[in-house]
């Protein structure tokens, strides 16, 4: 008996010691990266698609911007369009025709030259009805694109406004003047795909083919796809065929789809990650105090808000909607609950979006709120409102906000809010069916122009889902889309915002701030509104504390 006990004890001891010794000497990812120049990036989620025409998520964007390049690139500090696959472009007098001149040395990862025909092929692909691309509507600004995409006409019949004049000249014709067109081109829905690869895997008209797997994927960006292990890591390596390969200093990037902020933080603190996707709001204060050199707060183009179902009581009455909005202490919310330096929202579009800043539509006025509610109650012969259900999708962050608001409304208006935490899919299904009263929502801009926010509230827009419809709003929006002069556009945008404030179909709460942890050795990384960081400008340099 002693023998057995001793043996297993010694074995266990030996194993542990060996383990410790082995890892004691192993340097962390961040330490090794100074030599290897490999960026370790917290992706936040496993991307559903690596196909640029099918992708929909931030995670997908982060990888696609490494693997592919569109006609234009982004300035790393301002995100303004700079030459990408196209080295220059011309805009016609009537602002409806854009002619792009592709650069001589733009190449795909296998050495093939990037041609104008590749872009025609790509735009045709995403607009092909049977592909089922969710972001195909981004290309509706092209002339006749909608008629082809809806299946009304064939490609030949539709005569979509994209044409290859020659190998290196691409002409795009727009349906209407679109002032933010060049900004649009930064979205991955406009990225090209390599036609021979697509044809090889039969992916020109359907999804679900293996063309996006490592070894098959051919892109034209600074990096090529090396490894893809689901839920574990996605690795890309610098590609020598990229036209600007001399500028790229990173030799590779490893993306880790870590879903929880706490696990990401643990990874960061043990030197496993250079950059995290998010930070848990509870830990912000602590990190700010202990490690201010790590934590970064960057304005992010997004609005956090609640939707009212204006078709059903009590939110079919404007007074109740206003009462709820006016009695939220947004300042307290961002300072005490969110703590990330978020900005309270008194309008829908984030400030300085493409130069446009809406004036505050309303403020914090709990007395007025009470008055409005009492007027409503009196009219309906009620002493108090029946309990209201608030839907939100499962997340610690949403829960905290919901709980805080629940308490605020109870105190200020005496109304009872029932929190209904739903799992994501159930939540989406419920909202799209209109089966709710009050629901949490968030909207991140796709490009830097107020249009990406305000178009949501157009009558019948697929993302509206509140049941609100206002002709004046629709008109102002269309006028903003057509106007050329920024000043005119901003006037129309302001009108939209004023209507949103006076009708209150939604309850804006705050504007996003992107909070993340970033190691000081990451250079060439600048805060941008869309959280885009062109990787070819990034490199690793500096001291790594042991």
């Amino acid at each position, binding site marked *: *008996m002693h023998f057995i006990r001793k043996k297993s004890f010694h074995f266990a001891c030996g194993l542990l010691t060996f383990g410790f010794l082995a890892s004691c000497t192993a340097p962390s990812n961040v330490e090794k990266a100074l030599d290897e120049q490999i960026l370790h990036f917290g992706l936040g989620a496993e991307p*559903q698609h690596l196909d640029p025409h099918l992708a929909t998520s931030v995670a997908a964007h982060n990888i696609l911007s490494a693997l592919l390049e569109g006609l234009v690139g982004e300035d790393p500090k301002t995100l303004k369009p700079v030459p990408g696959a196209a080295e220059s472009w011309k805009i016609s007098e009537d602002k409806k025709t854009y002619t792009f001149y592709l650069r001589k040395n733009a190449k795909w990862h296998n050495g093939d030259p990037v041609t104008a025909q590749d872009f025609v092929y790509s735009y045709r692909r995403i607009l092909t009805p049977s592909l089922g691309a969710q972001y195909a509507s981004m290309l509706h600004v092209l002339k006749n694109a909608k008629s082809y995409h809806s*299946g009304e006409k064939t490609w030949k019949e539709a005569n979509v406004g994209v044409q290859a004049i020659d190998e290196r000249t691409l002409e795009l014709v727009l349906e209407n003047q679109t002032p933010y067109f060049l900004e649009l081109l930064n979205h991955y829905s406009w990225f090209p795909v390599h036609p021979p690869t697509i044809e090889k895997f039969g992916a020109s008209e359907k999804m679900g083919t293996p063309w996006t797997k490592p070894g098959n994927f051919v892109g034209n960006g600074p990096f090529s796809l090396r490894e893809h292990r689901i*839920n574990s890591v996605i690795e890309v390596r610098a590609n020598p065929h990229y036209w600007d390969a001399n500028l790229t200093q990173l030799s590779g990037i490893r993306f880790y789809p870590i879903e929880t902020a706490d696990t990401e933080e643990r990874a960061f603190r043990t030197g*496993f990650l250079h950059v995290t996707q998010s930070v848990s709001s509870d830990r912000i204060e602590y990190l700010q105090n202990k490690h201010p050199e790590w934590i970064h707060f960057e304005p992010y183009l997004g609005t956090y808000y609640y939707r009212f179902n204006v078709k059903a009581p009590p939110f079919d009455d404007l007074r109740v909607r206003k009462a709820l909005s006016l009695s939220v202490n947004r300042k307290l919310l961002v300072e005490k609950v969110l703590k990330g330096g978020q900005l309270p929202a008194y309008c829908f579009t984030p400030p300085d979006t493409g130069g446009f800043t809406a004036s505050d539509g309303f403020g914090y006025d709990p007395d007025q709120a009470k008055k409005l509610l009492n007027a409503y109650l009196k009219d309906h012969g009620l002493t108090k409102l029946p309990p209201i259900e608030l839907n939100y999708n499962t997340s610690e962050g949403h829960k905290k906000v919901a709980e805080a608001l629940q308490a605020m409304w109870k105190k200020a208006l005496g109304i009872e809010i029932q929190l209904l935490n739903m799992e994501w899919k159930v939540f989406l299904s419920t909202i799209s069916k209109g089966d709710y009263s009050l629901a949490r929502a968030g909207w991140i801009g796709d490009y830097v122009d107020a249009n990406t926010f305000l178009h949501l509230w157009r009558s019948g827009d697929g993302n509206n889902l509140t049941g609100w419809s206002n002709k004046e709003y629709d008109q102002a929006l269309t006028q903003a889309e057509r106007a050329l002069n920024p000043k005119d556009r901003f006037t129309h945008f302001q009108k939209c915002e004023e209507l949103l404030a006076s009708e209150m179909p939604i309850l804006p709460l705050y504007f996003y701030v992107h909070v993340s942890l970033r190691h000081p050795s990451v250079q060439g990384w600048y805060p941008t509104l869309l959280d885009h960081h062109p990787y070819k400008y990034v490199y690793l340099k500096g001291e790594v504390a042991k």
Partner: protein
Amino acid sequence: MKNFFISRLLQAIPTLFVIATLTFFMTRFAPGGPFDSDKAIPEEIKIKLQSHFGLNLPLFDQYLLYMKNLLAGDLGPSFKYVGWDVSELIQLAFPVSLSLGVSALLIALLIGLPAGMLAALRKNTWWDYLPMGIAMVGICLPSFVLGPILIMVFATKLKLLPALGWYSWTDLILPSLTLGLFYAAYVARLTRAGMLETLKQDYVRTARAKGASPGRVLVKHAMRGGLLPVVTYLGPAFAGLVSGSFIIESIFFIPGLGKFFVTAAFNRDYTVVLGTVLFYATLIIILNLLVDFLQAWLDPKAREQR
């Protein structure tokens, strides 16, 4: 013996059939589908997506189609990880969960068996109370408490072990320890109880009376009896280890099957859900079979009951 195996295998087929059918309809009746997303999809596009995956057929037709493919060994494509097949995903994720489970089990046995035996042999002394006390704590401490504590101590503060991931062999240590300690506690208690039970038996006293040395008595007789309840526990324990490991996989960022399953359930990735459930069920059936076999081998009386 052979009849035993055959009858059990035959029993497995209707079992799997029932499980497949149950899961299929359960997932379909739940609200939400794989293509609901926060940026609204135009109806026509949604229809296209659904028809690509055959989701626009009447439900019963989909069921028949799925069963037909299943018999041919085809688990279908994933809805969420487009371009990947379910069997591919299981092939990637299962070995991970398996290594985690096996390491945890080894730790459980390496710590639990000797601890339990020691406690039984040194009954009612500190050698008994202390290990059993610790074991009791082990049973009462959830893994999502122990895990972060171990990470905080060994990874963040002492920087001795990795905090997460599944990239090199050192990544195995903390997760298996977290998972294994819980089962070690159970194993210790079961071993102790089993050994005490056996040590009292007549045949053990007879062996002693016949002059067999304590060591021989221990190995040949008592241990067998002590191992019996552990073996009985092993089957469900191992199945539990592999299928319930999603908490550990989540805390330690391990790309195992548990995590796949939970994510698939949340994403309404029907095929992955079905594939994983069937896979686990098959695994459990095989494990139960092995355990019954081991049991019969260890305990002659059990053989007769079959």
